[in-house]
């Protein structure tokens, strides 16, 4: 538990993410930012300056795939911990149907059964797939270790898929970051590990019912 002076007066806090989960999440986040910036330099000359952040073009090119491999290992280690909470359930369909109304504050959020809502779950699964594609295509184009053994037509395909998936991922991560910023109380969950009871009851009533008893002071 955090010292009480950091905590708003009122009900006690619930633990949403453990130390290990938060540290892995932020390691993945740092790796992603570095990966995206280094990859961007190779996508469009307008962004070539980002290679300066990595010691110039040649070193940026060397470091990008190593960052990618690190990222993939961290991401899948993290994703494995979350897989059970991200399995889709029938009520997720209802949540998705009301998603746009909720996003525009035109209606209440459809009650969420588990730890994550359907939007979070779809983000989870899309990242699991997109990062797998990025990993496989990235390995195929990794000079000098793998690319020399890969037929050139396959490398062409890998290059194009890698670039396309990088943008799908940018959109996904963009939505993820914005949703966290928009949903007040979420960033606290991933930085300090805790959420208020009110937050839990509001956003994840099912999860609240499950953990409130356990976590009560």
């Amino acid at each position, binding site marked *: 538990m955090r010292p009480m002076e950091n905590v*708003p007066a*009122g*009900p006690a806090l619930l633990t949403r993410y453990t130390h290990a989960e938060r540290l892995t999440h932020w390691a993945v986040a740092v790796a992603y930012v570095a990966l995206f910036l280094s990859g961007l*330099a*190779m*996508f*469009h*000359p*307008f962004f*070539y300056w980002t*290679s300066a952040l990595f010691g110039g*073009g*040649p070193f*940026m*090119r*060397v470091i990008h795939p190593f960052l990618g491999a690190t990222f993939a290992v961290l991401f899948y280690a993290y994703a494995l911990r979350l897989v059970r909470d991200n399995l889709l359930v029938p009520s997720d369909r209802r949540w998705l149907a009301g998603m746009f109304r909720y*996003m*525009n*504050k035109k209606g*209440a*959020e459809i009650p969420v059964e588990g730890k994550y809502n359907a939007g979070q779950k779809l983000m989870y699964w899309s990242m699991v797939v997109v990062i797998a594609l990025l990993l496989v295509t990235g390995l195929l*184009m990794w*000079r*000098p270790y793998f*690319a*020399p053994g890969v037929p*050139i*037509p396959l*490398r*062409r*395909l890998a*290059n*194009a898929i890698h*670039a*396309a998936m990088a*943008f799908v991922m*940018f*959109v996904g991560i*963009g*939505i993820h970051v*914005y949703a966290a*910023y*928009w*949903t*007040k*109380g979420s960033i606290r969950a991933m930085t300090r590990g805790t959420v*208020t*009871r*009110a*937050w*839990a*009851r*509001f*956003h994840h009533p099912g999860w609240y019912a499950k953990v409130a008893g356990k976590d009560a002071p």
Partner: protein
Amino acid sequence: MALMSLDVTRRSASTSAAPSVRSGAIPDVAKLIDVSRCIGCKACQAACMEWNDLRDEVGTNLGTLQNPQDLTDRSWTVMRFYEQEVGDRGLQWLIVKDGCLHCEDPGCLRACPAPGAIVQYANGIVDFQQDRCIGCGYCQTGCPFDVPRFSARDQKAYKCTLCSDRVAVGLEPACVKTCPTQALSFGSKADMRDLADERVRELRERGLGQAAIYDPAGVKGTHVVYVLPHGDPGLYRLPAKPEVSPLVAFWRGGVAKTLGVLTMVGVVVAGIFHYMKVGPMEVDEHEEGRRP
């Protein structure tokens, strides 16, 4: 550094025009390789090594005249030897000088993400600037002829320069200079096309009715032109219709790049606008998270 005595007309990964104030006075150049005259002596390989100060690893003899077996970072031209059945003419021994064809529309240059690492001079020569190369290998995916090779020592791409340093001061490439049978010629592209036409006419008179020029239109012509006595490029292991792969053209092209940038801008703008219009999703702590 690009040779500043030659104009640069195209630079890889550049959003602005290449420095080209002297353009207009420089004619397109071309090397003509007349396969029918080549005796496979490999003097051109030796001359290339000598002029460019290249010494490849000594390989092993695999029971063929072809040596080295393939283009490398230090073998920019290789004589390839093929024993080939050619229709009713029976077994033919075909000798093809392999190396960069210096495409008018170079796929390597279009694919390259490093600004100025690949340039094209006003005379048509496509040159790698190794000091700017980042070693990504995209040039290999752009090339329809499988020409660029990477050095294991510096991870930079190398290929035939068409002796741009010699051409810049009015000399012919080292391979052309040394060729003892006039299988190689060098001059303006127009002159080389005329010479090629003449050679093809001679070959046809000698009974090689299929003789043809190889100057593929898919890459807007090349600055290395072949005369192929049996015509069909496939016999010489040259692609029949080479072009920059549509995948590379799309992914490295303006549309995909613009779409990518607009996507990123779109995500940021959408986020800001949504926040300004809808405002944050807050939970009223005093209401204990009761649903509105």
